[in-house]
Every structure is written in structure tokens, then in C-alpha cells.
């Protein structure tokens, strides 16, 4: 069942939990044995603390939700001092999602995280749609992504996963640029930019008007993008976007993903991640795959 994503990042199975949907793992230990997961990707962290956007930050949509949390977090140093000691011995891979508003922040943050023995990888967030300089500026052009990935690559020696924005014209082009700049893998998709309006009140439902769409509704878009990117790059692709059960996860792997992340579905069923890991196994047995790695790109 082992999934080797390269440069030392080896997952026990293809299932990880997506950043911002699983806290620091601690919030879910009553529901999920973390040893059942390939990894957890902890909340988006920036070099300096951020208060995030004002309330309201969430709007429910058909089969999904919009959020505009805006990267609320206490900064990399707080993570290192306070959170890391609590979670470093979890029996799973703990990845840190690192975001920034300028090149320097990414580089400094990555340098600090590089020193953390028990964090085998960074998921570089160049695709947050909810803050003015949430990195999406880097993630939507090939030159932007080349710049941030190559600079971080210089200081970060472990597995560098780059999380891609779907809010682009040609995501394969962006993925290729990340690969060329030194990414070890790419994960996609981050949320799709969206908006919700309360017609009765004639007001936007979110405090900053627009937000990121996630949940089951984005799955077809995510699946298509994973397929396009997997065809284009040689590095492993981590698929996410609306995965709610093992069948969804298998679909992403058939489309070319080597591993998957579960996001918004954690809110509806806090135990879903372990169920998906179990269900992928069950699918492999039923279809005669010796291990989950064989599912990657096995679309007929």
C-alpha cells in the first residue's frame, strides 16, 4: 500500500487530510486513528501571525461551501514553539502548509520549517484566494511560480509539494513551471473563487465578498485538472477537490494522482479519512490491484 512521493516522503497509504480542514490533527483524534492515514497537512501557516478576515467567513452552497478565512494563524514561530511539540510524534506524516505574502516570507518560513526533524514535507500554498497577497499572485503565472518555488527550493531540503490554484487558464503550464523550478510533487486543486449573495438582504454573504469554493460540487473540475496535470508532469500529483468517499479517491488516482487529500468532507463526517483509506484497500482487492500505487493513471 506504501506510496513513495519522492525525496523521503513515503506514505503508508494514499490518504492525507487537506490543510485547513483537519486543524492540527488533534481536533480529530476522537474520530480517526491517525495511524490509519498516509499523512495530515496542517493549517496554512505564514511567517508572521495573521488575524484572518472578519466574520462571516462561510457560506453554504449546493453540495459545497465558500470560505474566506484568510489564513488565520499564529505564525511559523508559534507553530514551532507550541504546536510542533504536541504533534511531532503522531504516527503519520505531518506536513506543514506554508503560505506567504512575499517571496521573503516564503523563504524565511521554509528555512525555519526545514529545521523541524519530524516534518518531512512542506505543501507550498501559492494559491490561497482569500487574502490580497495570499500567494495566489505567485500561483497564477508561470513566472511567479518559478520564482517562489526555485527560491524556496534553495533553502528547503526535504519534500517540496506545491499546491496549485484552479483559478488559471492552463493549470498544466503552471504545474510544469513548478516542476522545472524544483517541486517534488504538486497538489491540486485549491479552492475555486466564488461568491454568494443574500438576495433578501441584498448583501454578499461573505465579509470580503468573494471566497473559495470547496466540497463535492468541485469534484468534476478537480478531477479534470488532475488528469491534465498528471499527463503533463513527471513528478507525482496529489489530487484533491470534493473527495467524499473511497470511490471519489479511486477516481482521482485513476486520473493520475499518486495520493489524495480529503478536505471539506471532514466537516460532514469527521471519520471519513480513515474510511476512505480502508475503502481504497477494498477496491484494490476487488479489482486485483496488488497495491494502491498501481491505481495511479490506470484509467482504461
Amino acid at each position, binding site marked *: 500500500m506504501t506510496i513513495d512521493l519522492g525525496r523521503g516522503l513515503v506514505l503508508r497509504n494514499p490518504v492525507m487530510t487537506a490543510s485547513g480542514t483537519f486543524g492540527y490533527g488533534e*481536533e*480529530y483524534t476522537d474520530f480517526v486513528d491517525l495511524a490509519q492515514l498516509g499523512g495530515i497537512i496542517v493549517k496554512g501557516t505564514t511567517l508572521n501571525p495573521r488575524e484572518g478576515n472578519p466574520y462571516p467567513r462561510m457560506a*453554504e452552497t*449546493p*453540495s*459545497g461551501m465558500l470560505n474566506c478565512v484568510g489564513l*488565520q494563524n499564529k505564525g511559523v514561530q508559534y507553530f514551532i514553539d507550541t504546536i510542533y511539540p504536541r504533534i511531532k510524534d503522531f504516527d503519520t506524516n505531518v506536513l506543514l502548509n506554508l503560505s506567504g505574502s512575499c517571496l521573503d516570507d516564503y523563504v524565511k518560513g521554509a528555512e525555519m520549517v526545514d529545521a523541524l526533524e519530524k516534518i518531512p514535507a512542506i505543501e507550498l500554498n501559492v494559491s490561497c484566494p482569500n487574502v490580497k497577497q495570499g500567494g495566489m499572485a505567485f500561483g497564477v503565472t508561470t513566472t511567479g511560480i518559478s520564482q517562489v518555488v526555485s527560491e524556496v527550493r534553495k533553502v528547503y531540503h526535504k519534500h517540496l509539494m506545491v499546491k496549485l490554484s484552479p483559478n488559471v487558464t492552463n493549470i498544466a503550464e503552471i504545474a510544469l513551471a513548478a516542476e522545472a523550478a524544483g517541486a517534488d510533487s504538486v497538489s491540486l486543486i485549491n479552492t475555486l473563487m466564488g461568491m454568494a449573495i443574500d438576495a433578501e438582504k441584498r448583501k454578499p454573504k461573505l465579509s470580503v465578498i468573494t471566497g473559495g469554493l470547496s466540497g463535492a460540487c468541485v469534484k468534476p473540475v478537480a478531477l479534470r485538472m488532475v488528469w491534465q496535470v498528471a499527463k503533463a508532469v513527471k513528478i507525482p500529483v496529489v489530487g484533491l477537490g470534493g473527495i467524499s468517499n473511497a470511490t471519489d479517491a479511486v477516481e482521482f488516482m485513476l486520473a493520475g494522482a499518486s495520493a489524495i487529500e480529503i478536505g471539506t468532507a471532514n*466537516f*460532514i463526517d469527521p471519520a471519513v479519512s480513515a474510511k476512505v483509506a480502508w475503502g481504497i484497500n477494498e477496491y484494490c482487492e476487488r479489482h486485483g490491484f496488488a497495491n494502491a500505487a498501481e491505481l495511479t493513471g490506470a484509467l482504461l
Partner: protein
Amino acid sequence: MKQIADFKLIAKQDYGRSVLLRLRSKRPLPDIMPGQFVQVRVDGSPSTYLRRPISIHDVEFEQNEITLLVQQVGEGTRHLAAAEEGDTINMVLPLGNGFSLPEKGERCLLVGGGIGIAPLYYFAKVLNAKGVRPTLLLGGKTDTDLLRLADYQKLGETFVTTEDGSRGEKGFVTMHSVWQKQSFDKIYVCGPKPMMKAVAKLAAEKNVWCEVSLENLMACGLGACLCCVEDTVDGHVCVCKEGPVFNTRRLKW
């Protein structure tokens, strides 16, 4: 410890806009503090994607029973209210932190507005079991908003206001004469935000300790998504995890 559990709807009482759902689990219930809440999965409603946070109205540990008092405000709660006896309802529980329990001998006032009276029933019951008989002040727009009034009255001296004067004193809870006649050591409030702010202001003027229960829009209910934040003296904090009960001194009201 939190759990995800299927409950069977064993009894339902219809109050028009609100409905009382008595739910039984096969599993023993975890410890539940008054003021904590559940996240209910709403099945079969295509427009309802997320769970709905609902306060806990009553608990019977011997029978593994939880009672919810649900007001229909949107599609999710409308769907929930349409559940029939025998239906299975999935819940994550217990979530958040409950009200701070008073010391013996402290005079407690429980103030509820509209459907905000719901968690005060279990709270008053627990207080009685601890030997603290609370005073209750319940407000509604009209008489029919004051659900299960006779049952509340058994748990403590109960005062009532209605905006239309159809029951009790006419006006808002903050206008009730009990504020002039009695004094309290602790005030606990659950209701619409403007009402809670008004009571919190009154409590502050009287220099009385006050806790309120917030109900910000939530997604996860576990402190993971950071959607339900309230602005506090400690910055943005999750109502689901650090609340829903807050001491008013902590809030930037």
C-alpha cells in the same frame, strides 16, 4: 470524548415553528455539560451540505437519550423538523464548552430569548441536581414562543416577557421588573445576539458576572475550519471550540 453516533427518533412533539425531537442512541452517551451542542447531519436535503449545530435541550443518560428543540429557520432545520419517529439521525457530540457551573449558594439567573431558551432547560436541571435553584427569565415575541413553560417553572422561579404582552410582562427581557427586585451573582444568557448584548450591558452596569452562548455560522464544529470566529480580547477565536459559551468580559461587544 466526542463521538459520531446514529440516534433513533423515538418521540416528536410539534410546536408549529419549532419541534421537540427525542433521540435515542444504542451507545452510552459521553459526558455532556449544559451549554454544549451537537452537529446534526441532515440527510436527503440536496441544498443542505453541512451539519447543523443544535444546542442540547435535555439529556437522559440512563436511556442514552438526547432531546433537541429545533426551530425551523432554513432548509436544513426544516428538513430536520420533518423527520418521523423511527428515523435515524446522525450526530457528532458533545461539542464546545458548557456554561460554568456556579458555586453552591450563588444566585443564578438564566435568561433565554426565543429558541435560545432551549439549552437552559438541561442547564436548570443540572443546577437543581447540584442543589442550586436558578431563577429563569424567558422572553419571546409572543405567548407561543415560550415552549414548555410549565416544565421550566418546575426547575426554578420563572419570569416571562413577551413583546406583544400576550404573556408575562410586555417588552424585552431587559425591561422585566425582576431586575429591580432581585440581585444575582451569575447571569447566563442564550438568545438572539441583540438580546444577549442588551443583557450583557445590563449585567456589566450591575457589575455581575455574565456568560452568553453564541451561535455563529459553523462548518466543522471542531475548531478546524476557523469559520465561526468571534472577535475577542484574544483575537479571533472559534465559537465552536472555545465557546459557544463565553464570559462577556472576553468579547469585544
